[in-house]
């Protein structure tokens, strides 16, 4: 065990990131994926440092831009297991446009968003998921913006795999992560996570009280029911796989990639080039 190793991190002791990282390592171990076949991608933020803290290929890119790089790496080599770990600011704020459009693109990657409803790296400003009235050093009158509901947005935008996890429920999180990694398409998981340093509202105790695993008889293939369930956030916050639908992923839809040969293993024949040159004569 511990193929994915343990490293010193720059996270605060008690941060929810630790249990998310451990759940991820467990999920990868249990799936039997080799570290050199995994590509971890992050943008910028505390969560986005995750790729630095496990033994796997890593791509720590620009703020908000993890998804474009991740999907293109997968397009280049579908033999890689590509996983994005990044925060709510990176995924929904700076990278919001990529979030919507990569749902549409449906490349076979897993996207794990560490959602602590606050900006940690920049020391405590409102994030797209911060609650209304949330007071910070910038939102001095309280957050005036309506919080984004990421799982609702994902289902509405046509995502085929939408789940919500909680960093405090490792057992469920490992199971969700494994399903997400195995799902043949874009799999999105919003992970509730306390920020013990800056978020004094959405604390561990708050999430522990609010997080409610979906019932065993919940049917994740019913889109309308999934939308209804996603909208429930005031009494309890449902966790688990909210929506699941089989859809053709990017590689299967793409006329060049759908034969299964990774793009990087294709050679362009000289004859093709000669024909193309000839087409201009």
């Amino acid at each position: 065990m511990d193929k994915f190793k343990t490293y010193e991190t720059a996270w605060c002791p008690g941060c929810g990131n630790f249990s998310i990282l451990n759940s991820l390592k467990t999920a990868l171990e249990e799936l039997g994926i080799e570290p050199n076949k995994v590509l971890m991608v992050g943008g910028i933020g505390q969560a986005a440092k995750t790729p630095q803290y496990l033994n796997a290929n890593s791509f720590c890119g620009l703020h908000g831009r993890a998804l474009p790089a991740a999907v293109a790496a997968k397009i280049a080599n579908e033999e890689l297991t590509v996983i994005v770990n990044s925060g709510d600011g990176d995924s929904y704020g700076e990278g919001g446009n990529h979030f919507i459009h990569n749902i549409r693109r449906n490349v076979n990657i897993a996207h794990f968003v560490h959602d602590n409803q606050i900006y940690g790296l920049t020391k405590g400003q409102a994030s797209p998921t911060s609650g209304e009235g949330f007071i910070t050093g910038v939102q001095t009158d309280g957050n005036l913006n309506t919080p984004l509901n990421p799982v609702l947005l994902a289902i509405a935008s046509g995502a085929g795999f939408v789940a919500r996890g909680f960093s405090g429920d490792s057992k469920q999180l490992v199971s969700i992560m494994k399903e997400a990694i195995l799902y043949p398409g874009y799999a999105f998981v919003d992970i509730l996570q306390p920020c013990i340093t800056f978020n004094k509202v959405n604390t561990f105790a708050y999430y522990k009280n609010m997080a409610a695993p979906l019932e065993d008889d919940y049917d994740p293939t019913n889109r309308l029911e999934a939308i209804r369930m996603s909208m429930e956030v005031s009494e309890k916050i449902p966790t688990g796989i909210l929506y699941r639908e089989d859809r053709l992923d990017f590689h299967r839809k793409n006329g060049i990639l759908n034969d299964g040969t990774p793009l990087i293993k294709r050679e362009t024949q000289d004859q093709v080039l000669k024909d193309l040159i000839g087409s201009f004569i």
Partner: protein
Amino acid sequence: MYNILIGGAAGQGIDTTVSILEKLLKHSGYYIYTTRDFMSRVRGGHNFSLLRFGTEVITSHSYCLDGIIALNEETIDIHKHELKEQGFILCDSSFDYPDTDLRVLKLPMNKIAKELGNGKASASVAVGAVLKLFGEPFTYIEEVMADVMKKEILEVNLNAAKAGYAAVEAKFNHLEGGYKDYMLISGSEALGLGAVAGGLKFYSAYPMSPSTAVLEYLASVGHKAGIVVEQAEDEIAAVNMALGASFAGARAMTGTSGGGFCLKVEALGFSGIAEIPLVAVDVQRPGPATGLPTRTEQSDLKFVISASQGEFPRLVIALRNQEDAFYQTFRALNLAEKYQIPVILLSDQYLGDSTACVKPFDISGLKQVSHAKEAQGEYLRYRITEDGISPRLIPGLTDHIVAADSDEHDERGWITESAEVRIQMVDKRMRKLKGLIEELSEPEFMGVEHCETLLLGWGSAYGPIKEAVSLLNKNGKGSYGALVFGDIYPLPQEKLKFYAKGRTLINVEQNATGQLASLIREQTGIECHKSILKYDGRQISGEEITKIVLEGGSR
């Protein structure tokens, strides 16, 4: 050499008409040089193409016209002063243009087309008439029309052309040229084809004029060449996708025009610090902001050589003509791979949309450099090396773990804030410039070796400058030469320092501030004495440059 203008409103079929004519004329042996001038609209306005053809190599457009094919009346009003005395104006009989101008040649084009059952075929009447006017046979037209037209409308257009052919008498003599077996290709197509030759596997872009032609060409050959062409949600996604694909081992390129390039700037620096090979194309148009979307300018030079915060090595290559676009794009992909740097290709609307005859590209000498160095002992992605180039393995194709980081990082690719490592890493990256500078291509010299006046230019001004030097030397007053840069940053200096001595220097640029002159002054202390600058969005021609130089003036 002949020069005709085909003008009309957007949507009247100017593009198709020109494309048929240039193919037919090339087939009969002529060298072709066609430029396209159009407005940023889908219908209406005034668009035109200049089709210049002859039996020698042509490098510039010209406004001395032998003929005007006017699909609307406005075309005649705007361009009649450019028409030679013995030229012709071909237009519809219904046009309100006075018959007292003996150059006018009215044909019932619209009537013929309507009688044939398709009003839109009137431009094909003009095609037939032009062929006859220039003494061309009516033999190859069916093949060419079938190539650019839908099957349903082919017959009616052929009949329209036949009617036009019958309606006029030959006016010019057919000249025998040797270019039948040459390629006829636009700058953007040549750029795309160069990328195919360079092993491109992934191209991502957001549509933006005038760079869309590259996107469209690559999309059209994607299946054949095994290239994934992805339309990104925005330019930021486009460049970050290219970086992700490149990291994973696919040769990747992204293309746009000025405004889109602005959005890609942060990622350019990411390519620099993370040492991920990237080719970024900027097909320039007049800025700033939206500027003149469908027109031409060379005003992004100083922007792209300094784009992105921080310092990192980069290469900027300005494409000079269609042939250069092919070979330099191939080379750009190789150099990006070899030095693990961003390479920026500067094209522009003039070059991108112009078609010219080119000797068929020779791929026998083109060899792709390998993308990775073998790891010895512990694999360190950012190993400190003498030449600054570290071993780049491809994730998943090796047992080693491969890292890329936009933060400053140590040799393993892990984030660090160590002052010592920072210095080592900056120095390592910048050391790559030494090798890069050694393989820069010097600017091309043309003209009289011991000239008195030296023109300096870059990129697509190459052709017009070449024609100007030739015209100026024929004129007999003074002697002229020119240096035209392709590789432009880092600035190659050897020939420049050699030729600049004791000569009157005139920079010729399609911008308002003389960006090349400024770069030369900054890098070498050499000052240009005069400058010819054009920034109205319309490409300067060889004849215009000649006129301004002879008038002794700067502009």
